[in-house]
């Protein structure tokens, strides 16, 4: 179940601003699934344009609380543990300020280094 939560708009910008974050990638599996399905179909037309309007940081409201997933690329000079911890802490602080909802998980995936 995926719901667009009120604070999600700001999460992309927030994560991008964390020192050491070089790139932000779509974290929702939906994007990948849609893209793959489109391309694998016996297409009668050009593949769909990249889906850019979905927020890249993925958020979902589930029974046990909010789940946030951010997929990032970091600079070669950075430590993945430090940058991912900074991203986590920034998201956690943002959630506390935005009504402090129960948090089930904040996931940070370092998908690319350098």
């Amino acid at each position: 179940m995926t719901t667009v939560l009120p604070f999600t708009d700001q999460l992309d910008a927030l994560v991008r601003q964390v020192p050491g974050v070089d790139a932000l990638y779509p974290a929702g599996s939906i994007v990948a699934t849609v893209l793959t399905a489109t391309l694998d179909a016996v297409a009668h037309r050009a593949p769909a344009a990249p889906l850019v309007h979905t927020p890249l940081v993925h958020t979902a409201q589930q029974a046990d609380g909010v789940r946030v997933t951010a997929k990032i690329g970091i600079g070669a000079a950075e430590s993945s543990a430090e940058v991912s911890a900074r991203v986590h802490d920034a998201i956690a602080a943002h959630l506390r300020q935005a009504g402090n909802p129960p948090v089930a998980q904040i996931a940070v995936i370092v998908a690319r280094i350098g």
Partner: protein
Amino acid sequence: MPGTLREQVASPLAAATDQMLADRAADGDLRAFEVLVRRYGPLMRVYAIRILGSNDESDDVVQESFITAWQQLGTLDDGSAVKSWLMRIVSRKSIDRLRARRQHVNIDDTDAPAPDHHAPHALAEVESQTEALARVLAALPEDQRRCWTLREVAEYSYGDIAAEVNLPLSTVRGLLARARKTLLREMEEWR
């Protein structure tokens, strides 16, 4: 975005063997994959154009082929065979397109990309031999054209062609002989 082109600098990757590039691309190295795209993209497009004619579909087919290749590179056991593997992907996607197009237009076995079949004599003076060859190729029946393209563009062995088009070797040989005879006959006309 992960796909952003990097500045084109003389990288050792550009000189790397197919095997090295395929191994690295299978591990997720986008730069190695980009070198493969540049190395074999033009040949794949020539292939698609031979099968589909020169149009947007040929572009789409090559693009889809590379996206499939990126996703499935891990299944390629022998990286040095990446060229024929890529040609197989573009070959299959081209045929899929051709079939889909035929279902759409609902025409039968006549071949779509062939231009108007002008009398060879009328064109002989204005056409170069290569242009004439391209025109005759486009007019070949689909099965002959497919075997010919696998042989002459993708450089497949007769056995590999038979496996790819799922026909007995003798049939493939017959189709290729027939294609060559047609081309020879037409070439006699151009002289």
